[in-house]
């Protein structure tokens, strides 16, 4: 479950990085992002990615660093597929990502 939390955070981070970009935001929401929105996405992305890295390293030490690199690769691959082939699915994917994040986060906090 911790691995799911780490991966969800990483995926969320890269999703935010993508949405901070004009063209990807437009593909998903059919509108222009404001300067403020882009900045908010960037801040969320950096917080999320650092949290993911932190969790990986706290839980697995050096091995966690390797896992984190793998999560990054998988996240970028998934997002590249969604943004390039099915941008309309990004909203659903983002909702699923947040749900998984909340579930795994709750499990992490409780247990």
């Amino acid at each position, binding site marked *: 479950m911790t691995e799911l939390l780490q991966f969800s955070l990483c995926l969320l981070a890269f999703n935010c990085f*993508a949405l901070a970009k004009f063209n990807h935001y437009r593909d998903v929401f059919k509108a222009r992002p404001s300067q403020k929105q882009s900045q908010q996405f960037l801040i969320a992305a950096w917080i999320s990615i650092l949290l993911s890295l932190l969790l990986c390293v706290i839980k697995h030490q050096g091995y966690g660093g390797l*896992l984190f690199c*793998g999560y*990054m*690769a*998988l996240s970028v691959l998934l997002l*590249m597929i969604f943004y*390039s*082939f099915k941008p309309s699915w990004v909203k659903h994917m983002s909702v699923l990502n947040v749900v998984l994040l909340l579930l795994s986060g709750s499990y992490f906090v409780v247990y």
Partner: protein
Amino acid sequence: MKESFFRSMTWMHTWVGLLVCWLLYLIFFAGTISFFRDEVTLWNQPALHSIQAPQERIAQQREQIIAGVDYLKATAPESGRWGIYLPTEREPQLNYAYEKPRPEGKRFGGWQDHYINPTTGDSLQQPRETKGGNFFYRLHFDLHYIDVRTARWIVCFASLFMLVALISGVVIHKRIFKDMFSFRKNKGSRSWLDGHNVSSVLALPFHIMITYTGLITLIFMLFPYPAMTAYDDGVRGLFNDVTPTNVRTKSSDVAAPLTPIDSVLDQIYTNWPNADLTRFSIKDPNKTSATITVRASTGTLVRDQTPTMLFNGVDGSLIAKSVDEYSSTEVFYDSLTALHTGRLANPLLRWLYFLCGIAGCIMIATGCIMWAKRIRERMKKDQKASFGLKLVEGLNLATLMGLPLATCAFFIANRLLPLSLTQRADKEILAFFIAWLAVALFSLFKRAKMQWYLLAWVNAVACISVPLINALTTKGNIVSYLLNSQWALFSFDLVCLVCALLFALQAKKLRTQLHTPTPTTRSNHVTKNSLVEQKA
């Protein structure tokens, strides 16, 4: 060299990459399969498929070692070496092996294995002779058929070129991070460039790590001079110094009873209370020169050297033990080796390594295809292709489509070759190289889209044949593996089916392209940014 820094880097990236791309593809391809070396070996040995990993694996190890020593004492008292290979999560079988009599002039006679189901304790049928995943592992850096030392030098140079290409690639592809999630399909060269960029950037830390650590694993061959200066016997002296368990004892012919194994085991478990032992081997059993070597797993520690203990086989005293605390230099070297081999990885990380390895293969493949494609696009209508272009196109087809077919041929040969065939393992490897050679000869004649299309279908059929032939020749199939939770075998068949699907999609795409006229100009789909990059 060109005038500006950017142009120089572009020139270097192109030529450094192109010169060794086919060799790098082979190295990456074989290396990626090697991450699942044990699983591939398991698939290649149907006799071991019925084994399930025992529940109390570590708790059973003591009894398994005692039973193993008793078995070997009774079966091969005169053998020069005994080995007890304990079940692990990836290799669930228990193996009591002993060395066969050494042929005249040879230092080792080969192992006679006796496999046991650790759950039931039953002896298993002798598995078929195969190299399994070890073939791909050795191919990755020994290149087969080539002298080992020469092959490793070649691989080192290719890795060095790869490292240069990676760094220069980050410099020249200015927009790789900006276009990280962009893949523009059906845009000609732009799509190939996007594929190249995305596959590079998504696993960039992995690509740099695996290339750099690859060089580090062979650093003592590349740069032995400090060790040669400090030690009389060079690198061997260095390794003996840092590895206390590398003690060589001279074999004796004088008989002496083996120490009680219980006393040795007591010492092991006193030193390592929760040890997960992997191997228990005895050299010169029942002789005065007997030694016992015990190895334990490192688990998920980023460490390649396994914890080892060496005992005197006659009096049971501890001769040497691997150090628990490494110096910073040892930690650096050992952890980099561990990162490269990925032996530390649990299934999740192993799949992530595999994914990154595939990304590496795609990066190399798209790079070399793109070079040929751009030269073709720049040619005038009536211009003839140069020898260099033909060579690159031929090597592209032979390598990129030949290697997957050769791999399928290896697995199909594993299932179809008669079990009684002499040197069966070598014949499987021969099947691999014959299939590859056939594709190479095929690509000698023509290298057009039609040939890619035909080979895509051949590869799709070959990939789907692997699980099909497996289902027809063994008791298991992909459905039974799923129902029995045999994940290694299930994943193997599933990967073959996915590859078959991808090759079929490739064939379908190529068929569409074959029926549409080729654009005569390249300007249609080229953006301003890509033009800068296309100047390569």
